[in-house]
């Protein structure tokens, strides 16, 4: 029977081939990218302004050994030994990492966020357990990488990588130690050569900063993160791009810079952003005292709101007064004619949704188990940066600007959400069924819209040719929430505006960091 089954399978595959091929290989748009060859080397990036470090010499990097030192020659021989005997898998890792260190670590970040973006399951008594950073592997695993958490994580990693790279490019210029293939012309090289001094290694800086930051942000995944970093470093040796001392100095620099960011992260008030029962009740009381209808959770059992004090987290681009200054005016009153109209509009959208609108809802949903809206904008940005062939340090800078903008957008958005504590459409009209899950926090203003307004604005500045495209995407992402039945139009329009206003600070930073 087995044998005949196989024949059937072969016949079936022949038929399948007529449709879309028998192969089940799936298309991954970055799986086989060419090696990064920067159009502009940005060799002067050591002079760019770091975002957290006071100067590019905040972290000292010791002078490297000379290239005629026997230790150095031993390190060249380590490369040769690796190249004498390697597996196809090791070679494929060289190709994988050569597409760009910042890109690959950004992808790993998105993967970790998606993996950990799961709301904890309730306790038997109907309460919910909170992930515990001090015991990350116990259920619920730390973190619950929801959108605000993810926005913050992306920002810290990207900014730490950028600052560490600025320092690295500075020391590259200071010490000017040549790449191993420039020292030993007989060395085989598996990646495109460049004229950049190789000490400290920019790849190792990026990996070191990521590993150190992620230790704090994704503690349950350290084994995986360390394994990826090790593969990354091994790929650099095997490819002939770096000797071990390039990598060790780079990793040490990346880690040291990241430790400064980690110190900031430990005191940025994110740890207290979940609030407690008293603070959750206070939100209800304050809203009632204002004569308004307080938000309530649609989850069963009723789940406390997501990170109600995230609006108090320390932002990168503005201070706490700046957050309050950006807080928009109130949403339409619940009893107002405008709110009735907007609720009716939502109802009409979800009553008979078109296929295209459902596609838009789901394209932008970025809900549970995904890399979140900030992750989606990272993916959008990365796709364009790949085409632009920018240097590693510019990759880091652009992603840092993008992610700092989205992190701060999350802060301003969450501040607004919990200041007004406004109900979702389904709360005002229970017959509104939704095409995606109702996020467990107040409606006004839309997180997707605030993220997207901020992201589209900074990305449009970084790549003016794509500005209109980003704007259109942001508008679509924003409206997807109305189509999906989970936001009023006001939430989205004001969210977009607020995100755009916030991003002006990121644009200012971009204009003054020395990279333009």
């Amino acid at each position, binding site marked *: 029977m087995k044998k*005949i089954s196989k024949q059937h399978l072969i016949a*079936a595959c022949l*038929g399948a081939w007529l449709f*879309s091929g028998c192969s089940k290989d799936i298309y991954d748009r970055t799986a086989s990218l060419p090696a990064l060859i920067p159009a502009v080397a940005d060799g002067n990036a050591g002079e760019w302004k770091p975002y957290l470090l006071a100067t590019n010499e905040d972290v000292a990097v010791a002078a490297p050994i000379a290239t005629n030192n026997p230790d150095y020659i031993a390190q060249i021989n380590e490369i040769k030994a690796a190249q004498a005997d390697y597996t196809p898998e090791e070679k494929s890792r060289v190709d994988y990492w050569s597409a760009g260190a910042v890109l690959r670590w950004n992808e790993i970040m998105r993967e970790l966020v998606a993996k950990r973006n799961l709301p904890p399951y309730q306790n038997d008594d109907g309460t919910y357990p909170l992930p515990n950073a001090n015991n990350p592997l116990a259920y619920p695993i730390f973190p619950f990488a929801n959108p605000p958490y993810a926005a913050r994580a992306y920002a810290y990693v990207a900014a730490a990588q950028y600052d560490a790279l600025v320092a690295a490019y500075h020391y590259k210029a200071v010490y000017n130690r040549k790449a191993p293939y420039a020292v030993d012309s007989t060395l085989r090289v598996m990646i495109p050569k460049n004229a950049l001094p190789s000490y400290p290694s920019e790849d190792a800086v990026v990996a070191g900063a990521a590993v150190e930051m992620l230790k704090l942000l994704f503690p349950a995944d350290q084994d995986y993160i360390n394994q990826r970093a090790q593969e990354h470093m091994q790929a650099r040796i095997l490819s002939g791009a770096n000797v071990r001392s390039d990598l060790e100095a780079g990793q040490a620099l990346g880690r040291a810079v990241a430790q400064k960011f980690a110190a900031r992260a430990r005191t940025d008030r994110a740890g207290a952003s979940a609030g407690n029962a008293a603070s959750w009740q206070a939100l209800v009381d304050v809203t009632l005292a204002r004569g308004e209808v307080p938000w309530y959770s649609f*989850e069963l059992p009723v789940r406390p709101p997501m990170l109600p004090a995230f609006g108090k987290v320390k932002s990168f681009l503005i201070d706490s007064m700046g957050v309050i200054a950006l807080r928009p005016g109130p949403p339409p009153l619940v009893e107002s004619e405008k709110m009735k109209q907007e609720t009716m509009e939502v109802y009409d959208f979800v009553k008979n949704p078109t296929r295209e609108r459902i596609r838009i809802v789901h394209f932008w949903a970025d809900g*549970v188990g995904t890399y979140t809206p900030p992750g989606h904008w990272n993916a959008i940005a990365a796709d364009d940066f790949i085409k632009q062939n920018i240097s590693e340090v510019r990759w880091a800078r652009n992603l840092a600007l993008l992610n700092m903008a989205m992190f701060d957008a999350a802060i301003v958005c969450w501040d607004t959400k919990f200041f007004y504590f406004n109900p979702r459409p389904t709360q005002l009209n229970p017959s*509104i069924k939704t*095409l995606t899950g109702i996020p467990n926090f107040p409606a006004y203003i839309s997180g997707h819209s605030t993220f997207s307004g901020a992201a589209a604005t900074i990305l449009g500045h970084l790549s003016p040719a794509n500005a209109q495209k980003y704007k259109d995407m942001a508008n679509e992402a924003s409206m997807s929430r109305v189509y999906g039945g989970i936001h009023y139009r006001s939430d989205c329009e004001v969210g977009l505006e607020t995100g755009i206003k916030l991003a002006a600070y990121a644009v200012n930073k971009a204009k003054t960091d020395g990279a333009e």
Partner: protein
Amino acid sequence: MLLKYSPTCLLVGALLASTCQLHAQTETDAIMMNRTQFCAGFLYNHSSWNEYWEGTRKRNNLNLGTVTNQSVMFMANYGITDNLNVMVGAPYVWTNASAGTLKGMKGVQDLSLNVKWRGLNYAINKKSKLALYAIGGFSTPLQNYVIDYLPLSVGLGSTNFTGRLMVDYKYNRWFATLWGAYTYRNNIKLDRADYYDTEGHNGNEVRMPDQSTFQLRAGYRGKYLIAEATLTRLHTIGGFDITRNNMPFPSNQMNSSVAGAGFKYTLKQHTNLSFLGSFGYTFRGLDVNGNYFLDSRNVGKSTSFSGGIFYAIYTKKSARKTANNNTNQP
């Protein structure tokens, strides 16, 4: 036409997807239409669950309540020869969750096409008979319905090719049928840009793991009445478990074991007309060591029932035979 509830139909709703591929019915039974006979009808199916297996963990979900999947399927069967039948079918599916706010979906699901060939029809003696069948099946979505919205999507969206081998033994009016099938499932594409299954993917194309299905059915097959019990085992070859409190995903490892019963009755006074009904229950069976020898995972613990009405047309060419073979004799 002799319609039995198909195992895959029993799985409507047994699958967390609530959406199995509804095949035309007769590819799963050992009954043939004679040459030029044509039969068509409608089958209604109702399947619901309020518990499901998240991986191996059984749970409920207060934000879904009871998930219900209903369908009406049109089916037709034509006898090209006494030993070669061709069948088509297509269901209209609608879904609903009794709690929470997620909106149900509705729409035409997959077209299925099956060719059934009886390669052997051997009378062992006066009382017992043995028959062997080979069935080739194909199904594909009739429209671009929403896939990535489990458990409320209409279907899983893949184009499938199924090979099935069946053996049927009959003693007087008692019978037992056993078949095994292998289903090759083409990749699908989601509405979202990227996704995570057990790793991150930069793209929306999803590899769908293939499936194997086995069914044992046994009971009484008389001239006008068929009554039988069934046991159906669906196994997804690969795929992954739903992680804790995550949403289900189309390429989850959806396995199910379904026990069922069904009947079909052809009117004596009007043999063109027949009625059928069936019932199915998804379960998980423990062996003495506490292992699940009959597994169900990443599917709803569903209860389903179906009912249908079918009308057969006996043309002149087959009329000569209809006096005797208008009913359930294979």
